[in-house]
């Protein structure tokens, strides 16, 4: 029996405890140790990546043993392509966030401990396959995030942190109640087992036998849906996000948008799609509308913003909207027609790729914003800058690459995911895909506006002495930029790992 996934989760958790115990005085030791811990996490994730048997596609590195016998709860860990991808993303973004937080000097030991605990929560969420401890990690991620916003955030941090926590908890409680109902009816908390029951129809019959309502399945689905929809977020459950993203310190926003938002998407893919395919089909049209609304409205909202972080926050909602669109479209038709299977696989491949790419690009963008803030003394309004390309050419070039990746320029990573999504969704739900292209258009408009008003035009005299990226900062942004190119040119690097998983998932949907 291997314990790699447990160790992977425990490393940042224990590292956080050690760092919290070091005290506020030894700042450099705290930072160094946080960096080392997060790099160990990255190394561990890389080992998993290399040892993952891509051809097989099923769950690997499985750990499974009884935990709470009286409640029938097992400790069950494992990753497939989806889990692996998310673990990898977490492992990449965290060290970058730690490096970006190098200048935090208020209680750095608590700060870095919270960052590492957040990472542990994320690793746990992406590897746990039993609701009991999955939910534990799901919530464990929430508390560090709350305090990171609350204690190190911007001027309106209290309200933002509170709103973030309460919204997420509303979703979590709904999710919890749904799963308790499922557990009561089926006696299982095991995601894989429940997905099997859903396929064979046992789940539906057990639910209606236990509760005596015909529509109980739908009610339970809505509870679980709410839990994930708040986290992603889906419009209209998104209102916590702009405040939280813009008030959080930028390195924390990197984690929030880069990885925490993926928790919601991961939940959709791992839990909602396999366990509730029938319910998704029942309300498919409204769900597709929600996805379309998420894409189009968030892009329009981003266009209307004047604050860099808020623009990027809304743009994050927009990018995850494409994943939702792909996911719902993939649930659409029940027949086992090979052609539609291929389209579904394309859509889901695209969604997974988009999740990874968005995590990479969005965290890079917030990293750039944090670098701007450092130079401007906290200013980040769209109108505060202008003509920066003349004074900080390297910065302009590199951030431009990230922005164009976000915009979906072919050759950069953002393009591949969106292309696959639209390729898959168009035949499955043509009208939804057609309307969603408006989102692409508006995204292009607001990102170009951003580039124009910050980097082009006449130079704002105030910034004529703005220093360009230092060598250390160049090395900091280098990994993200390199990956943006690598994945844009050679997406097979990721697709190869996830393909078998996606094919499995598509086959599970045919019944």
């Amino acid at each position, binding site marked *: 029996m291997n314990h790699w996934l447990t160790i992977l989760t425990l490393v940042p958790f224990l590292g956080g405890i050690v760092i919290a115990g070091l005290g506020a005085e030894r700042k450099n030791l705290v930072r160094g140790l946080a960096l080392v811990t997060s790099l160990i996490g990255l190394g561990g994730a890389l080992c998993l990546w290399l040892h993952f048997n891509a051809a097989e596609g099923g769950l690997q590195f499985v750990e499974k043993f009884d935990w*709470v*016998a*009286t*409640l029938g709860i097992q400790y069950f860990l494992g990753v497939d392509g989806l889990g692996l991808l998310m673990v990898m993303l977490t492992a990449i973004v965290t060290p970058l966030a730690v490096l970006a937080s190098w200048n935090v000097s208020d209680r750095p030991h608590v700060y870095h401990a919270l960052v590492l605990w957040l990472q542990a929560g994320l690793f746990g969420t992406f590897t746990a396959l039993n609701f*009991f*401890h999955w*939910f*534990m990690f799901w*919530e*464990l991620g929430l*508390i560090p995030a*709350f*305090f990171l916003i*609350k*204690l190190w955030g911007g001027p309106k*941090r*209290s309200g933002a942190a*509170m709103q973030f*926590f*309460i919204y997420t*908890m*509303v979703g979590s*409680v*709904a999710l*919890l*109640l749904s799963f*308790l*109902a499922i*557990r*009561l009816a089926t006696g299982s908390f095991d995601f894989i087992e429940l997905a099997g029951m859903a396929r064979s129809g046992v789940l539906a019959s057990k639910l209606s036998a*236990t*509760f005596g*309502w015909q529509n*109980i399945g739908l009610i339970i689905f809505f509870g679980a849906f709410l839990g994930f929809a708040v986290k992603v977020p889906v419009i209209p459950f998104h209102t916590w996000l702009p405040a939280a993203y813009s008030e959080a310190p930028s390195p924390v926003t990197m984690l929030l948008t880069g990885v925490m938002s993926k928790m919601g998407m991961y939940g959709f893919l791992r839990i909602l799609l396999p366990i509730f395919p029938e319910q998704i089909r029942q309300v498919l049209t409204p769900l597709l509308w929600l996805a379309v609304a998420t894409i189009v409205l968030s892009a329009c909202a981003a266009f209307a913003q004047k604050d860099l972080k808020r623009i990027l926050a809304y743009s994050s909602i927009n990018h995850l909207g494409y994943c939702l669109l792909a996911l719902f479209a993939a649930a659409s038709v029940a027949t086992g027609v090979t052609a539609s299977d291929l389209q579904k696989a394309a859509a889901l491949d695209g969604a997974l790729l988009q999740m990874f790419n968005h995590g990479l690009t969005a965290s890079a963008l917030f990293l750039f914003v944090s670098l701007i803030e450092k130079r401007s003394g906290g200013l980040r309004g769209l109108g505060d800058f202008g003509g920066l390309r003349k004074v900080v050419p390297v910065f302009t070039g590199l951030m431009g690459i990230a922005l164009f990746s976000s915009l979906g320029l072919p050759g950069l990573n953002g393009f591949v995911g969106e292309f696959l999504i639209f390729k898959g969704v168009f035949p499955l739900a043509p009208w939804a895909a057609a309307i969603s292209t408006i989102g692409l258009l508006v995204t292009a408009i607001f990102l170009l506006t951003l580039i124009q008003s910050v980097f082009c035009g006449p130079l704002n005299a105030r910034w004529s002495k703005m220093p360009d990226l230092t060598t250390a900062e160049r090395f900091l942004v280098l990994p993200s930029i390199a990956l943006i190119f690598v994945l844009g040119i050679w997406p097979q690097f990721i697709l190869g790992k996830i393909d078998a998983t996606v094919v499995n998932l598509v086959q599970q949907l045919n019944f």
Partner: protein
Amino acid sequence: MLAWTIYITFIGVLVLMLLPRDNARAARIVALLTAIAGCVVAFIGAIQQTHPGEVTTITKIDWVPAIGASYYLAADGISLVLIVLTGLAAVTGILFSWNIEKRAKEFFAFYLVLIGGVYGVFLSFDVLLLFVFYELTIIPKYFLIARWGSTRKEYGAMKLALYSFVGSHLVLIGLVATWVVAKGQLGHASLNLIELSKVSFPLAFQHWMFPLVFIGFAILAGMWPFHTWAPTGHVAAPTAGSMLLAGVVMKLGAYGCLRVAMVLFPEGAKEWQWAIAALAVAGIVYGAGVALVQKDFKFVIGYSSVSHMGFVLLGLATLNTIGLDGAVLQMFSHGIIAGLLFAVVGRMVYDRTHTRDFNDLETMQLGKKLPFAAITFVIAGVASMGLPGFSGFVAELQVLMGAWAVFPKLTILSGVGIIIGVAYTLRAVQKGFYSDAPAKASDSHEHPLEPITIPEKVGAVMLIGASLVIGLFPGLLMNWIEPCVKSPLFERLLKGGSL
């Protein structure tokens, strides 16, 4: 063995009496040693019980044969859980009262009498004996609050005592009637709980007797709308008093509901199931809602207790195995967590700042001045919200699962209570410890706050540890609770009274 928990505690009271009047230090040490001895005995005794599913007799001596009363001490799994809880609460309560100087000897004497009475209730299987111990706890409660309390202490003490007396009178009337009817059916007088539980009381009798006895006990469990003693009493009590009130005294009520009212009148329980569940959920939501708007830090915790005890009552009302399991586990869990919350607010914060008003606390930056208190409160708050990893989650999880099976709509409603619970806890964390309000420059220099002392740290670590251990390994207690709930004693109850 377990009976010694009672005896040791009362011996401790006697030793305290013999101490000189003004030696607070000696009184503290004697009290602590007594409580530790009781706790250790409770632990060892509990572990030695190899069959938690059965009622294991400890002593059984005839007491008043004419009315069938006997000195009958016994324990099953549920008793074990609560005995261990009482042991933990007793020790930590003393650790958090280490700063009591005013008539410390009397304080700890009353404190130990209360503990002894609580042990007695949890171990009695004779209804009269149980009632005697139950009454015994009222007197020390009154004096602890009236003498060593704070805000409106006389009022709080009086209210608590009156509510308790009303409740116990209802119980007493019910028990007398039960005794009479049982005598007719059995042919001989009996107050033995096990014997009585086998009597099939007439339906009409159960229909009226169940609510009488249940409400009598439920008043002490803080059932809405009879809860109003709880917040005022908790706030008025000294720290150790609130810890015991919320930690174990409220459990006495819930324990009585389960052990006496529900076991004796299973059909009555079935009939009134809906009413109890509705009141329980009303308590969950109402308690949380009121906690959300309090200005006094301690009132927040007081009302949160009402809300959390609602889960115990909801679990009892389900009348199914998993719901009862959850209810008993929630009794344990709430005892630990509420004790910790009161310790932070009463001892760590109030004894140092002499205020519990959020408006004042907001200006004090306690998160930076008392980091240990802040972190303890955050952990306790997280546990109290029912976040996984802590005991509250496993307990509420089972209660809600049980409730889904019987009252799906009420279950969804109680979800609202949980969310409000998150909101008031966060509000308390923000206002109490991490407020953004500007600090008042003057008083921070004049009165540096005393740092958190060792006894406080030990107590906090014990309680956090207990909640974490049970949260991660609920099996430790479930192995006692589950066989017990499935035992013949509860069989009639779980079958909805039909047997």
